[in-house]
Each structure stands twice: as structure tokens, then as C-alpha cells.
């Protein structure tokens, strides 16, 4: 029963045609705004310069990609550029270098939920497991690895602190983003999956 429900979220109904619409673009823009606020708050709450050790904005990236596919992926790239600039937590050059990491950090959960046919409403143990592994642990590990690599490239952290910064970054981001993301998926997904903005595929 559960499997059937999971598959239904992503599978197209008979005759259903899905194409990118204006509401996807608008939702992406609004979601970027939400990300800017959450990301700026995270950067200002625990300010460690260019290093991120408490950033709930990651939840917005993962959840955005689960709900809105590639539109969430674009939002994952754009909103950190703005929130980093407003919070002063990274310059434009560093933020641009972060962009691929931000994209991967978000889209991993979106891909996993579609690939494993999980329900964004987190109804089963499998949904929770996939969210924990792909939307919490792995994506933050990838994002932290990328971020640390960028900081090394710009000479903003000492080479021997790489592992410590990586662990602090990935663990520090995983906790708040996992909690916020779980709340969003559990309580807001029921509304989103019924909306026009929800993307069963990657673009619509």
C-alpha cells in the first residue's frame, strides 16, 4: 500500500502532460527569497567568516529540489549568492566558486527521492532513511568537501586544518538542516504535492 502511494507521487496520471509553466518560475523566485532569509539568518547566527558551521539554508536546498526539481536546483545556486553577500559571509568570487557545490548539495536529495520513489511527506521508514542519508548526511558532506576545497584554493584556511574544518562544516550543517528539512517535508509537503508548482519530473 505504501509502495503504491510512494509511486503515485512521482508517476504521471493517464493523459497528464507536464511542462514548465510560469508558476514554476514564480515559485522558484519566492523560494529563493525564503532561502535568502534562512541562509542570511544562519550565516549571522554563527559567524565564522567564510566557513559554515550552522547553516539551515541547506534544508531549503534539499527540500526545494525534492519539491521543485531543477527549479529548486537553480534556487540552490542563486540564494546562497545573495545571502552570502548580505551576511558578508563570502565574497562574490568565493560564492561563485561555491555554486557547483551548492547545486550538488541540493539536487542530491531531489534525485534520490525521484530515483527511490520516496514520498516527500515522509510516510515510511524508507522515506526517512533516504532523506537522512541523501538529504542530510551525504549532501552536507559533499557541500562541505566542495566548500573546504574552495577555501583552500583561495588560501582562506590553513592546509592542515582541512579535515577539522570539513568535519565541523558537514556535521554542523547536517543537524540544523536535517531538523528544518524534516519539519518542512512532514508538514508542508502535503500542500506542495497537491499544488501546480510540484515537479514530478525535474522541470515540471
Amino acid at each position, binding site marked *: 500500500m505504501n509502495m503504491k502511494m510512494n509511486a503515485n507521487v512521482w508517476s504521471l496520471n493517464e493523459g497528464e502532460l507536464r511542462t514548465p509553466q510560469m508558476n514554476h518560475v514564480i515559485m522558484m523566485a519566492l523560494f529563493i527569497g525564503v532561502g535568502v532569509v534562512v541562509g542570511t539568518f544562519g550565516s549571522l547566527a554563527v559567524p565564522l567568516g567564510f566557513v559554515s558551521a550552522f547553516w539551515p539554508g541547506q534544508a531549503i536546498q534539499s527540500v526545494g529540489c525534492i519539491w521543485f526539481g531543477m527549479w529548486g536546483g537553480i534556487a540552490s545556486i542563486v540564494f546562497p549568492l545573495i545571502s552570502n553577500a548580505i551576511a558578508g559571509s563570502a565574497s562574490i568570487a568565493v560564492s561563485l566558486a561555491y555554486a557547483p557545490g551548492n547545486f550538488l548539495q541540493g539536487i542530491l536529495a531531489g534525485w534520490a527521492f525521484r530515483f527511490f520513489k520516496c514520498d516527500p511527506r515522509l510516510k515510511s521508514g524508507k522515506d526517512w532513511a533516504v532523506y537522512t542519508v541523501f538529504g542530510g548526511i551525504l549532501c552536507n558532506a559533499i557541500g562541505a568537501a566542495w566548500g573546504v576545497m574552495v577555501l583552500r584554493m*583561495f588560501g582562506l584556511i590553513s592546509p592542515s586544518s582541512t579535515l577539522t574544518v570539513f568535519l565541523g562544516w558537514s556535521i554542523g550543517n547536517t543537524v540544523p538542516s536535517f531538523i528544518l528539512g524534516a519539519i518542512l517535508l512532514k508538514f508542508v509537503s502535503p500542500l506542495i504535492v497537491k499544488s501546480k508548482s510540484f515537479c514530478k519530473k525535474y522541470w515540471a
Partner: protein
Amino acid sequence: MESVQTKKMMKTLLALIPVESPLYSFHPVSRLLLFVITGFIPLFINMPELNFMFAVVVLLLFIYSKVALSSLKMYLPVILCAGIFTFLTFIFFPGKDPDYKVIGHVFGLALYDQPIMNAFIAYSKILALLLSSIFYFSTNRERDILAALRTLKMPFVASYVLGLSLRSAGMFLEDLHTVREAEQARGLDYAAMKFTDKVKLYSMYIIPLISLALRRSDEISNALFVKGYSLKSSGKRADYILTKYRFSASDVATCVVLILLLVLIVYFKYRYQWFGSDHSLFQYVIK
């Protein structure tokens, strides 16, 4: 008196700035270019004194633009914590190099010359970049950013998304304010709440706020549809915002100087190894 003063001030993304600020004699494109160029220059400079001077120049730009320096107060924790964190990582994780020289001890830990120098370099870059970033958002409004991007011929959809995103952040905060006021009207006492309860409450705010965003997306897309906008063909349209700005000779000169400055810094850095830490005064002081 107060209303007269309010009329003369303009709200930017991060601060209040007088309408007659001399900075507004420059076109938004020049201001955007200043933001981009100053976001790159410190990355090419490994002499902390130059980056600190750069930061001072940015502070002078704040004064020139008549931005109240008190608006920087909220960034003090960022500036201090970033410094402490940067120095701690270089002190606790200096790495191993036989050429390192011990220059002192802190809490029983040896301080080495090169890691401390590297900490100064990293922190001076962070400070300079941070201030230049804050400067741009303290002196520009959302419409200035849009005007700059549209002047640079950014596609309408992209500039519209960016504009709506920035506006959406403001709407999100207004919605949050409304939710909090509604809670207070029902007798919720924040002061009496435990820290863990406050964390839970803040996390739960996101639910009505996202729901509002979802409803708003439908309303906005319907409004755009009614006005005949579509994803593929928005058509050529008159742009009211752009009529408010003029790209003058001083803008041309500013843009040329800024681009030239960056090109020269990059050229001298890679051709003649200028701006390296070996030439820094800090190197002599530390040694």
C-alpha cells in the same frame, strides 16, 4: 521635523541612506561593477596591510555615501568571530614545515611565524571582502540592482526572477512579523519561553510562511498570465526604471578605471610577483 528627515532618507537593502548621497550620481551599472571588482581585488593581494588599507577605503566610501556607520554594528560579531576563528585554525593547525620559526607561545602552544602570517593574510582578505559586500547592499536598492542588470541586457525573465526573489525575502520577513504579532495577541510570552521551546517555535514558523509563498506564487503567475507575460516570449517592452538613470561620462570613466585597476593588479601579480606576502611589512614585524 521627523517626517522631513524621513522623506530625505531612502531604504536600501541593508541601511537607510540620504536621497542626496553623492553615490547616486553614479549609474547602477557603475555601482554593480564596483561591487564585482572589489569582490575580486583582495583575493589577488597577499599583503595584509594593503587589504586593511582597502578595508579603510571601503569605510571611507561608506562615509562618502553618507551611510550611517552604525548600520555596521550588526556585522561586528561577524567581523570579530571570523577573525578569532581564522587565527585559531592557523594557531591550532599550523601544519609542519622545518622552516617555521617559533615566535611565541599561547596557552602552551607554539606560535609559528608563517602560519600567523597566513592568518593575517586570510583575515585581511575576509575583512576587505566583507566590507565591500556590505557596502553594495547598504547603498543599493532592489530597483538599482534591477536597473543595472537590465542595462546590461539581462533577459527579462532572469531579472524578473531576481527582483521577485529580493522582494520575496522582504515579504517573507513581513509575514513572519505578522505571525509573531498574531501569537503575541493571543498571549504568547517569548520572554518566559525556554531556549529549546524558542528553537522549536522558530522552526515551526517556516510552515505558514512557505504555505503563504505557495499561495502567492499562484496569485503572481495568474496576474502575469492575465497581463500576457509568458516564459518564452515576453516581447520588447518599454522599461520605466531605465528611464530614471543616465549613463554619464563619469560612469564611463569610473568603469574604465575599475576594470583597469583589476587588470593591472592581476598583471603585476602574475608577471612581476607583486602583492606577495614576502614584500609585506607584517612579514618583517612577525620575524
